[in-house]
């Protein structure tokens, strides 16, 4: 075998170095989102992830000059994927809570949410308290799960936990549940798909805010995302995205 020519070695080294540098500079940040959550994030038949969350993160990214790659991750797995580095950030309708703040860093809020109850049309339920002793469906680990666990007891057999919002709605429609609780945007969207369902707004539910999640201590990325959020609110991009998905004006410059 002939020895490799020095020139060949040089060319190879050059390309390897160039490729490595390019990768370090423009490695797209991996964004996790659970795409079963219209209108925040869902998959089109063409396997594209679209929604309010998607538009927000893309607008923010282009403002601060980063590229993002969206990965559809089940909600039950988003936090573990952040921890082990599979994801750089998560935008998936994640409610900012004190408990989550202990383990993750959040950006400023980008959406104001509230829990909403879906029940069969004939139901007489008017608020959360009326659901005591009834079968209540929630998405595992969601804010609704927290609320239900707090109200009815963590290990109560009346709380039925499923992986996604469509499943709790399906279970409600087929009579397996008396009610389903979830974030207002999604529950309202899902309930209007079924004639037999209506929504119940309990003003007792506290206001909540969705934030973008990064790994604990990754303040550099968080600050960058925060400045991006400020920028898209300031130039009206945020309001435009909000109108697109919710058909109303945003409550206020949230962030």
């Amino acid at each position, binding site marked *: 075998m002939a020895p490799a020519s020095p020139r060949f070695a040089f060319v190879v080294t050059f390309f390897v170095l160039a490729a490595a540098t390019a990768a370090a500079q423009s490695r797209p940040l991996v964004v996790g989102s659970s795409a079963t959550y219209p209108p925040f994030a869902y998959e089109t038949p063409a396997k594209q992830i679209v929604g309010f969350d998607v538009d927000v993160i893309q607008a923010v990214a282009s403002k601060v000059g980063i590229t993002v790659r969206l990965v559809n991750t089940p909600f039950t797995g988003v936090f*573990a994927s952040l921890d082990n580095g599979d994801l750089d950030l998560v935008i998936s309708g994640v409610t900012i809570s004190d408990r989550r703040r202990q*383990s993750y860093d959040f950006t400023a809020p980008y959406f104001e949410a509230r829990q909403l109850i879906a029940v069969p049309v004939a139901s007489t339920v008017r608020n959360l308290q009326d659901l005591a002793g009834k079968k209540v469906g929630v998405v*595992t*680990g969601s804010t609704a799960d927290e609320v239900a666990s707090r109200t009815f007891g963590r*290990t109560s057999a009346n709380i039925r936990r499923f992986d996604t919002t469509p*499943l709790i709605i*399906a279970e409600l429609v*087929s*009579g*397996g549940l008396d009610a389903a609780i979830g974030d207002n945007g999604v529950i309202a969207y899902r309930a209007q798909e079924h004639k037999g369902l209506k929504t119940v707004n309990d003003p007792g539910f506290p206001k909540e805010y969705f934030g973008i999640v990064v790994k604990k201590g990754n303040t550099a990325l968080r600050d960058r995302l925060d400045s991006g959020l400020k920028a898209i609110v300031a130039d009206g991009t945020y309001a435009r995205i909000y109108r697109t998905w919710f058909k109303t004006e945003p409550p206020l410059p949230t962030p």
Partner: protein
Amino acid sequence: MEPEPILWFGWFRADIIAEYAPLFWQGLRMTIGVTVIGITFGALLGLLVGMARLANARHAPARHLTRFLLRWPATVYVSFFRGTPLFVQIMLMHFAVVPLLMNPADGLIVSGELARTLRQDYGALLSGVLALTLNAGAYISEVFRAGIQSIDRGQVEAARSLGLSYRRTMYHVVLPQAFRRMLPPLGNNAIALLKDSSLVSAVGLSELAYAARTVAGAYSRYWEPYLTIAMMYWILTLALAYAVRRLEHRYGRGDTR
């Protein structure tokens, strides 16, 4: 409000498991219950289907009847349940098949308030057990078929020539011998069913995996809940393997000289 964290070995948050202990105990009972029902009915179904796949007759029309009414349906059934993922079967059963047969509005078999009560109290259990039993039955039928076919033809011929009917030949001669050979694969199937029952948590049945998912969802911690149920499953499968070994020993006595 938040309980004081209790750390074992400096990293294992034991307090989380303690907080959800009722869910884990209930989950353990449910896992054992579902497994026992699944194995029992799966074995019965497997025996029937295994024999259906072997059914044959010498002359028409019985020959055609056995083919179209027994062998073909049994073959299609086994092929479907072995050829599709159990998870898919569970989702189909709970969110599609059972609601069609049983729902408050227009269930084909049960409807009205009874359907609602049944679905609310036993819905996940019913569809979970159904899917697990049908799945196990398909695998076990192959164990029975292979076990029966492994018995030398001469045994059947000898029994028939002594004047025993087909049924008595099966019952007194073939099945006792086949059962010994079937025990190890049956044990494997039982252990597989025990572990596969964890998939039923997807339809909200409160078994072991459901308890772990609940805790993981609430705390975003994965070591504690999943290690806990891993140990519980392991102990259960060890116990099951031991029981099968005892049975093998007991029924194997006739073979040793």
